[in-house]
């Protein structure tokens, strides 16, 4: 077998795959954040907690005999509805204020939600088994590909580009883009913009919950599973540029891969590489790689 810079290909491709999987979650989560920020002007710090709620909802559904496949649809809807309630009760009061207030409120919500789950379920983590159809894997010759992990990458790509397509290429997307720029005028054309904002938040939260369901069979279902992840995802969002849809997707996958490669070539830096890139981007291009400066 050939080697690359002294690295066996099995290790290289293995880390690359791991990077793509992490990237799938980064992309889904930062996409949701970007969609929410675009419409609501709110930095949704509760995103990690909502991701965790997605995983827990899948776990609860299983207690009622509802398995992974239905949970992929049902859990995002349930968690999305809790998002809609949060938007109606709290967030809609903050749109006129500085970003900081939305960030503080959602940060507080995240702490409360995580605290409640921790109080109830401890922090050791609950098992969620893989759907039988996706257990096992394929030997691709140069590496072993676990089926479930391949599925995560494919599903994330489909959802991300589906969302991108709707926003950039459809009439509904034109309403969303226009309302991001000038909600008052779009409303004066006869569009119920407040309802659109509520549904957008529900959708963004639903994306986080979907990521949570996808994560449940890989990582244990744990009240703090979103707390660590969301810090990295915020770094991804800062690098990509707040509010850019394509930026969130490309940066999410890209940074996952970079992180994976760093694990191969310079393992000591693998936990910090994203933050180093963030610092460099902030210095050179404060609006982010895909953000529009204004």
């Amino acid at each position, binding site marked *: 077998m050939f080697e690359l810079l002294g690295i066996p290909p099995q290790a290289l491709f293995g880390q690359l795959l791991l990077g793509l999987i992490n990237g799938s979650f980064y992309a889904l989560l930062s996409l949701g954040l970007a969609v929410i920020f675009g419409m609501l002007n709110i930095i949704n710090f509760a995103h990690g907690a909502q991701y965790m709620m997605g995983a827990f909802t899948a776990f609860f559904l299983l207690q009622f005999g509802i398995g992974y496949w239905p949970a992929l649809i049902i859990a995002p809807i349930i968690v999305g509805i809790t998002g809609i309630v949060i938007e109606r009760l709290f967030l809609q009061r903050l749109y006129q204020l500085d970003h900081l207030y939305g960030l503080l409120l959602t940060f507080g919500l995240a702490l409360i939600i995580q605290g409640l789950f921790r109080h109830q379920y401890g922090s050791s983590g609950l098992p969620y088994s893989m759907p039988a159809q996706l257990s096992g894997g394929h030997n691709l010759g140069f590496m072993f590909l676990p089926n479930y992990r391949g599925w995560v990458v494919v599903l994330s790509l489909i959802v991300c580009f589906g969302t991108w397509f709707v926003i950039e290429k459809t*009439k509904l997307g*034109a*309403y969303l*883009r*226009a309302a*991001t*720029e*000038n909600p*008052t*005028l*779009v*409303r*004066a*054309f*006869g*569009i*119920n*913009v407040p309802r659109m904002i509520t549904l957008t938040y529900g959708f963004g939260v639903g994306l986080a919950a979907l990521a949570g369901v996808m994560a449940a069979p890989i990582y244990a279902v744990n009240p703090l599973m979103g707390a660590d992840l969301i810090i990295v995802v915020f770094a991804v969002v800062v690098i990509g540029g707040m509010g850019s849809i394509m930026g969130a997707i490309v940066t999410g996958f890209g940074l996952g891969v970079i992180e994976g490669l760093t694990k191969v070539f310079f393992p000591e830096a693998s936990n910090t590489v994203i933050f180093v890139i963030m610092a460099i981007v902030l210095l050179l291009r404060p609006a982010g790689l895909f953000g529009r400066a204004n």
Partner: protein
Amino acid sequence: MSVMLDRAAPLLAVEKLEAWYGESHILHGATFDVREGEVVTLLGRNGAGKTTTLKSVMGIVGKRSGSVAFGGQELIRMSSNDIARLGVAFCPEERGIFASLDVEENLLLPPVVRAGGLPLDRIFDLFPNLKERLGSSQGTKLSGGEQQMLAIARILRTGARLLLLDEPTEGLAPVIIQQIGKTIRALKEQGFTILLVEQNFRFASTVADRYYVMEHGRIIDRFANSELDANLDKLHDYLGV
């Protein structure tokens, strides 16, 4: 229904309209009306409250009181999206072309609210330049004149009967002003009712049936187009030109 069919009853009747931005009280009891098929022009100096009046009719100003009746229906407590659905359309002073939408998306953005809007080919008859620019990537890459035409064109499709046009000639070259004048006369022939805000009463006199003069949030004078010449001195005084 009989109210709506009666040509003498105004399509838009505004009474004792007051409006606020936060704590600042901008409109102080403006009263005027626009009859079906008329072009009525609101004149007044900078800051008189003309834009605020249009926005109050459209339901965009947060706090307002008094009465705005459209086709006999009271709008004062309605949200702007509901007002739009009744057939009122607004073309803002700053034009409001969306940068993240291409020209075609900008044109097709406002939803059709009633039957009877102009079909696209009629709109392109009125604005031939727009047809050529349809493929343009970004609405805001158009020239100022083209953006103004796009801002008018997009509200003609929707079936709205009352058009609120805020200074459509501001900052444009004379040829384009002429084209906009021609368009407004064509729209009037089509049966549109138009409430126009203008500072340029030379331009207004080529399209308007009647005028109202606004100052400090009140209507201080009114006259018909035929009375324009007799009122020129007063007008110069009002507008400070």
